[in-house]
């Protein structure tokens, strides 16, 4: 059996009045993958998801499902189903009726028998671990339970693609983590394509096979989570995904994928991400790449401003001549302490400095 | 689900027809009638004249009526609003568990009959009525007090009684729409309880106060039954009874119509006056979120 559930988006544009929500988006989502759309609020990710679902129509462009153009199909005739951010459970129906709703919408001829419906509902409730709660009403469920019901309801028609619109963002932290793993398990069990919209980078990186980073209605980068984290393709992605420090500097020379930079009066080499010789640059350094240098050593000197405890490590926020800098240490350091900061050669990534927000720290 | 333009128009057609044929056309007709006059046989003569308006504006009696209307409608509106605000405040912030049942009680009272209330106030305040028999039974007085019935007070009491459930519900709705943290935040910033009420709670319910005040004022001024049955010789003459009289007794319909339009014009003045006053008092903010 060939895998189904590939989605292709070709040159999709959408605007609301004068505001452009999506600008010429092209995207291939492989069949069976767990794909995340990651971006800040208002970046267009939910609009894109709704266009895939058929709940919104694109101004231009086409949507293909396994190679078939479905752009003009209404949502009820697409082989996709959706899990909504705030569950969108039908408040006047029991859990079982909610889950079974998708089986009752086909024409009378194609509708499954009552027995089959009951068994499919039971199967779905078991899949999400809620077999006992079929008779309850949505108002009697916790947030986590409600979202499981929403997942079961969306899966009952065996869609080739499950669309999830920030399904975990309304939940408490512990429930969120449990449900995250639950979603991974269901994905592995069913092999259905999952398209998962989120603004939470940890969530996107931890569960997806592929992540598409969106900004201002356009895709910045589509890659696997490690690549997104280790080699962000653009300054936006670098700032949005993961914590990091951005040092301002000047590009001395570029050779191959290496760039020789001058930062705070010292020369060092970093991976080139499109800088031009003689231009200004922003160099990304992840906190785990930086270390407190032995006394008098290191490339930079910084003053510790805050020291926060994270369980397995402490994170220092320091002020340096080239901007704020975050680094991780095993033992706490008192604020006010002067330290040397060092990093291995070839660790940083150099981006062209594109705006005046140099040094602004966009952690989370 | 958004509707197509055509379907929306289809859905609005019955309402449009109702507003056009049952409200706008009749009001236009009424306006036309206000420029007609009647002949000696009380027939309406459809020729243009402004004499009705001249009569209304010149006759001293009508000025007395206008004043009397104001002396009934203004206290009625004021008392209904103040009482309603107290009740609404209590229901919104102090009633606790009793809130649900008390709200139902208010809704039930709202459905109370207008005529039954008038009748009841007559029973209560009549010469041989309950209030007097109670007073006599308690030997507080030997002779009947004819004070309450057939007075402005009786009219105002009955009307306030009728409007209170309404103002309570409207103000309750606006008070519960105020985010719960605001009062606490104001208190936390050092505002006293009175200051919080004056500077936070009252302005945020300003729109409801404005609307409910006008609503009660208009209805009270246009009421033509309560003043007749509860008002005395000097206090039953209001715009409402005057207009109704033109239709049922005097049979001068064009004059009644012109009095009605003068009344509406005075209402417009009242709207502006209340708006200016509330703005000046800071009770009608332009932005309430």
């Amino acid at each position, binding site marked *: 059996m060939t895998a189904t559930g590939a989605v292709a988006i070709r040159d999709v544009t959408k605007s609301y009045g004068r505001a452009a929500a999506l600008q010429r988006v092209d995207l291939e989502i492989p069949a069976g993958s767990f794909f995340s759309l990651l971006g800040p609020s208002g970046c267009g990710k939910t609009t894109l998801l709704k266009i895939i679902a058929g709940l919104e129509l694109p101004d231009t462009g086409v949507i293909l499902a396994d190679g078939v153009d479905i752009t003009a199909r209404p949502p009820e005739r697409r082989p996709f189903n959706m899990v909504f951010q705030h569950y969108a459970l039908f408040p*006047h129906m029991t859990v079982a009726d909610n889950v079974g709703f998708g089986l009752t919408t*086909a024409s009378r001829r194609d509708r499954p028998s009552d027995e089959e419906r009951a068994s499919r509902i039971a199967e779905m409730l078991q899949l999400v671990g809620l077999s006992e709660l079929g008779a309850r009403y949505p*108002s009697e469920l916790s947030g986590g339970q409600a979202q499981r019901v929403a997942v079961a309801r969306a899966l009952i028609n065996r869609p080739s693609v499950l669309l999830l619109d920030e399904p975990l963002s309304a939940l408490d932290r512990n429930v969120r983590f449990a449900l995250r793993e639950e979603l991974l398990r269901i994905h592995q069990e069913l092999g259905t394509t999952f398209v998962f919209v989120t603004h939470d980078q940890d969530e996107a990186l931890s569960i997806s096979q592929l992540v598409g980073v969106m900004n201002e209605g356009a895709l910045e980068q589509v890659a696997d989570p490690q690549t997104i984290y280790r080699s962000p393709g653009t300054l936006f992605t670098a700032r949005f995904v993961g914590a990091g420090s951005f040092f301002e500097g000047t590009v001395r020379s570029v050779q191959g994928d290496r760039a020789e930079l001058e930062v705070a009066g010292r020369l060092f080499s970093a991976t080139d991400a499109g800088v031009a010789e003689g231009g200004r640059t922003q160099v990304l350094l992840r906190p785990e790449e930086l270390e407190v240098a032995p006394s008098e050593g290191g490339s930079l000197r910084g003053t510790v401003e805050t020291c926060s405890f994270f369980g397995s490590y402490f994170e220092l926020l320091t002020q340096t001549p080239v901007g704020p800098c975050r680094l991780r240490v095993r033992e706490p350091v008192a604020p006010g302490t002067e330290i040397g900061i060092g990093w291995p050669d070839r660790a940083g990534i150099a981006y062209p400095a594109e705006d005046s927000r140099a040094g602004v720290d966009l952690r989370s | 689900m958004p*509707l197509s333009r055509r379907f*929306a128009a289809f859905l609005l057609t019955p309402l449009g027809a109702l507003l056009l044929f049952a*409200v706008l056309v009749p009001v236009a007709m009424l306006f036309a009638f206000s420029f007609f006059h009647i002949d000696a046989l009380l027939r309406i003569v459809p020729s243009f004249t402004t004499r009705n308006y001249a009569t209304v504006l010149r006759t001293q009696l009508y000025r007395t009526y206008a004043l009397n209307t104001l002396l009934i409608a203004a206290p009625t509106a004021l008392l209904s609003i103040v009482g309603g605000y107290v009740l609404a405040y209590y229901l919104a912030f102090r009633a606790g568990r009793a809130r649900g049942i008390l709200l139902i009680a208010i809704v039930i*009272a709202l459905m109370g009959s207008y005529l039954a209330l008038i009748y009841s106030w*007559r029973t209560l305040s009549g010469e041989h009525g309950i209030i007097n028999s109670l007073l006599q039974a308690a030997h507080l007085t030997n002779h009947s007090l004819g004070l309450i019935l057939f007075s402005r007070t009786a009219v105002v009491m009955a009307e306030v*009684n009728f409007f209170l459930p309404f103002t309570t519900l409207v103000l309750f709705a606006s008070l519960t729409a105020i985010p719960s943290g605001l009062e606490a935040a104001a208190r936390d910033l050092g505002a006293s309880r009175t200051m919080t009420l004056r500077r936070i709670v009252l302005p945020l319910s300003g729109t409801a106060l404005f609307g409910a005040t006008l609503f009660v004022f208009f209805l009270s001024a246009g*009421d033509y039954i309560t003043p007749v049955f509860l008002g005395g010789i000097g206090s039953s003459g209001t715009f409402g009874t005057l207009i109704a009289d033109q239709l049922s007794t005097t049979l001068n319909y064009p004059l009644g119509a012109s009095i009605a339009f003068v009344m509406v014009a005075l209402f417009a003045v009242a709207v502006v006056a209340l708006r200016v006053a509330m703005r000046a008092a800071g009770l009608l903010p332009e932005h309430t979120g």
Partner: protein
Amino acid sequence: MRRRSWILTTVAALLFLFIYLPLLVVVLYGFNGGSNLSWPPQGFSLRWFRLIFGEEAFRSGLRVSATAALATAVIAVVIGTAAAFAIARRSNRLTRWFESGSRLPVMLPPLFIGIALVAAMKTFAIDPSMLTIIAGHVIITTPFVILIVVSRLRNYDMTVEQAARDLGATPRMVLRRITLPLIAPAIFGATVIAFAVSFDEVLITNFTSGTTQTLPLFVLSRLHRTIDPSVNAVATILLLVPWVVVGLALLWQRRGSRRGAADAPAETLARAA
């Protein structure tokens, strides 16, 4: 602080007493055995009810009022609900205009609407009848229906409709299986309010009824006479009919509220008013 809330509670209690005392007096004296309206009432009796039900004028008034109220409720709910959908689901200049226009009849005194209807009736030679009575009632009850249904349509989570579409429901199915069940309590509440308002209406009816006498008009004609204890019985009925209807509605909504389809019943009505 304690003392202040004690004062507020007392004032609130007195206001409740003020609202309810006259209503209770009507009901109490409706069942009074004596023919005097002085305190205390003289024993329990149904004599005034027997007396009043023996009168043809009363019985026909009750019939006329019930018919008018039922017809008004149905017509106002149909017109109002249809308009509410357009107003809540399509926001443009036209729908906004209709939304504020629909409030006009409530802002005008009933007397004004009454004499305006007389003007139209005189102009187009329409005789007063049951139809003109109902027209007057529909004018003032439709705005309430619109207010109630629009606020319900605006308050509920629209994504449930998207979810239903996504699960294969056609727009018609969404309307029948999701939207209508979810706004049913509001429509029902609007029906009840329209019925109650119409049943009690007298200020407009007085001008549009001609020789047809509704129950409130029957009471009005009795008010002109000297105090008549049988009026207490009629007034009791005027009170009890809407109360029973509203009471049943509240019970029904409370039963349904487990499903989360409705807000707390009284608050729904409160918002409506």
